[in-house]
């Protein structure tokens, strides 16, 4: 599968409080509404500007903090096709795969805000069409590849009736 879209660039340590702020806690059972506020405290304009297929690109330790699955869920609901970062916090990483949002580890220093990216999930390749750079992303653990390929954890369980990760 090839993903194509524009880059929204963020810095290091984008916490789950920045992605899904506590003051919108009451919207956790209204995720489309909550998605209107995604990443609001990191970039107040992001939610209104992001288009379907675009990428969220961070630095180190993306998603640090809470286990709230709402964080990757509302990023996905906002239309983002994948999150790229130099490193991810572990609960966010696993949650992202579980909700079917690819989380890709690569050298994001080479990617700039506004760049057009093309991501080939099978080949493990990222092409920055704006600056011509090609990057590879670190392969996911096998268990996660299975879950992601099935579309997320719930789809995986529905398909196999059990955890089938080896």
């Amino acid at each position, binding site marked *: 599968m090839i993903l194509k879209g524009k880059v929204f660039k963020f810095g290091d340590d984008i916490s789950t*409080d920045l992605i899904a702020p*506590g*003051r919108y806690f009451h919207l956790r059972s209204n995720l489309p509404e909550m998605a209107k506020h995604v990443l609001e405290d990191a970039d107040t304009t992001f939610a209104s500007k992001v288009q379907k297929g675009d990428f969220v690109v961070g630095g180190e330790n993306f998603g640090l903090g809470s*286990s*709230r699955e709402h964080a990757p869920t509302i990023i996905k609901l906002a239309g983002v096709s994948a999150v790229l970062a130099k490193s991810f916090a*572990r609960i966010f990483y696993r949650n992202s795969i579980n909700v079917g949002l690819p989380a890709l580890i690569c050298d994001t220093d080479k990617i700039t805000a506004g760049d057009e990216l093309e991501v080939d999930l099978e080949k493990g390749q990222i092409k920055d069409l704006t600056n011509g750079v090609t990057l590879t992303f670190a392969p996911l*653990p096998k*268990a996660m590849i299975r879950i992601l390929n099935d579309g997320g954890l719930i789809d995986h*369980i529905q398909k196999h009736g059990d955890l089938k*990760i080896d």
Partner: protein
Amino acid sequence: MGKTLAEKIIGKHAGKDVSAGEIVVVPVDVCLMQDGTAPLAIRQLQKINLEKAANPKRTVLFLDHAAPSPRKELSNDHITIREFAEKTGCQVSDVGMGICHQVIFEQHLNPGEILIGSDSHTCTGGAMAAFSTGMGSTDVAIGIALGKTWFRVPETFRIEVTGEFQPGVYSKDLILYLIGLIGADGATYKSLEFVGDTIDNMSISSRMTISNMAIEAGAKAGLIQSDKKTKEFLQKWGRVGKYRELKGDEDATFEKVIKIDASRLSPTVSFPHTVDNTKSIDEAKGIKIDQVFLGTCTNGRLEDFDIVCQIIKGRKKNPKTRFIVVPASKSVFLEAMSKGYIKQLVEFGAAILAPGCGPCVGVHEGILGDGENCISTQNRNFKGRMGNPDAFIYLGSPATAVAAAVAGEIVDPREFIAKKKPRGKKVKTTKRKRK
């Protein structure tokens, strides 16, 4: 070849010897969810017709993050949770009963068990040598329905802590110091295993503070051996039969060993807006404080109230500083009442709230105003954490926090700790000037 505590517990559940790096599927003993994460989990199970619990007696759903509920949307989430519990036989810990990590530790968890929870501070359970880790709603939903989950066995960092804390220095200062040392991603995916005489001598309550914050260094678990102190704790809670002595082997393979001399630690403060932005108390002195918060799964226990009440004895709260106090559980609340702590705190000027997360998550009960500074005994100070991105959160021990309630600004709590009295004579401690 020895095994780490993480390898031992996961291996026992996997039915074979395991080593760091392996992926295994294991049965889960205890599951917890909270009111911010349970509704999503429930909807996920409903999606695939899997509304059931493999272990309903050991699956506990907590109403703690928004309790009592401040809005009808959250009240409706509470209804969803109670209905799911009714349908599946799971337990509900309702409004006012306390914070999930405190209550699960008090009433449900045992050494050597595996606990998963849809809350990142589930790692608190590691303080009784239970492999306890936080996950997302869907992971825990599946864990509840099927009674199992998958883990990558983590590598272990051995944290050796020796020596005695100076008066006025506590386990909170130790863990903040460690997180500042290795960074918020310094232990991502790792199990932190705490050993050494400082740990051996530490109360269960102080151990819980350490394990609770393992996630703030990115760790998967924060494990401490089970020993005599664990046994006494279980005895108090009627589960002494569940006690097992568990510790990691000295000759296990560790990815890293970090040694800390506890006697050289000073009170530590995390500055806005990350937990690893730690500084020694000297650099924090003089910061004006609008709100002080004593509570949470990190430091909302009787031992914390004890320390605070000793400091406020004979002292007055700064009139310009609010002091919010939330006992971590009903049991803590009752014990604090019987010891006179609640009366003492109220007379001091504290606002006491129902056991739960209180203002920690920014949902209710103490949201900060624009530009305000708060010092809190909680475990996280990200921008916007307490409900307002235009406010500033400092983290510290209960002693550091309450000293700020007296002074109206951050001060060194050691100045408030009574020195040893020579026989017959009272030694005066420095009284802060009231502003």
